[in-house]
């Protein structure tokens, strides 16, 4: 399977993703420079975390107009797969490929720590191989991760099972204490109506190597790979 990882000025999780997808999981991975329009025939576009364009104006607002994003928008509108992690999630929301937006954390602080989440649906390729009761420990690192969508959009997300992950406590309970940033309904990740575009604030690529003592994130990438093998 061929993945493309976009590199913007200010991306800083691009190489973590490339390492996990190629070295650990054995896939072809190419870098996609933000100024290029050619997606090099990839099956799956990854939009990495970081601070693209210094987070100027709003996180993701400027990156969204990069030449490569025009191709990503076309790719997704034709049913192609893409996933944004952290800043990548913010970029995909700004691009209108994912519903809602990410606001400043309620306490206006940058949060960098391990958190717990559980899949909220198994109806997507990102979550289909996950155990719905298994709590995943995945780090977050963001200042603007408070997921927000207007009421009507939120209702649609719930009705169509478009929420892919929610923050929970270590025991797997969804409650306000386990909500790190004030996200609506503990939402940590969502998908679009077509379920081919995904976004999540936590960083599975930072928890996918045995050497780091936590491989929970690998399960998420493996779910994607299993879906493709099964297709």
């Amino acid at each position, binding site marked *: 399977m061929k993945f493309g990882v976009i590199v913007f000025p200010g991306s800083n999780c691009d190489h973590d993703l490339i390492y996990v997808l190629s070295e650990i999981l054995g896939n072809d991975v190419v870098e996609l420079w933000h100024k290029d329009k050619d997606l090099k025939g990839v099956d799956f576009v990854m939009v990495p975390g970081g601070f693209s364009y210094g987070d100027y104006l709003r996180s993701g607002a400027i990156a969204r107009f990069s030449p490569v994003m025009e191709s990503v928008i076309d790719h997704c509108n034709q049913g192609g797969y893409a996933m944004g992690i952290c800043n990548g999630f913010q970029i995909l929301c700004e691009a209108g490929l994912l519903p809602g937006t990410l606001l400043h954390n309620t306490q206006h602080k940058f949060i960098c720590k391990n958190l717990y989440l559980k899949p909220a649906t198994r109806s997507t390729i990102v979550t289909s191989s996950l155990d719905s009761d298994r709590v995943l420990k995945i780090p977050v690192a963001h200042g603007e991760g408070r997921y*927000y*969508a207007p009421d009507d959009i939120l209702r649609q997300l719930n009705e169509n099972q478009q929420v892919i992950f929610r923050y929970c406590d270590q025991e797997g309970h969804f409650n306000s204490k386990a909500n790190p940033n004030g996200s609506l309904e503990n939402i940590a990740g969502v998908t679009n109506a077509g379920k081919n575009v995904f976004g999540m604030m936590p960083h599975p690529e930072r928890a996918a190597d045995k050497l780091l003592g936590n491989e929970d994130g690998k399960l998420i990438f493996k779910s994607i790979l299993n879906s493709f093998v099964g297709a």
Partner: protein
Amino acid sequence: MEFIAHIDIMPLDALLDPQGKAVSSSMKNLGLEEITNVRIGKHITLQVSASSKDEAEARVDDACKRLLANQIMEKYRFELEETASV
């Protein structure tokens, strides 16, 4: 014609503004208890060339909608000031 647009972008009223809230509470520390409900947004100025004020307004509105403001979380308003052509 040349115009300068003065654009104000504010978080939507329904949304919590953590920055504004923190500043609100520090007003108490300054002994300014009568100041409450601080909300913080952005002020942007830009220059626009257009053949009429209506055209300039349409251009700035387009810029606000497509890039400067995210209407899921922000509202905007602007005023145009005509300046001497260079």
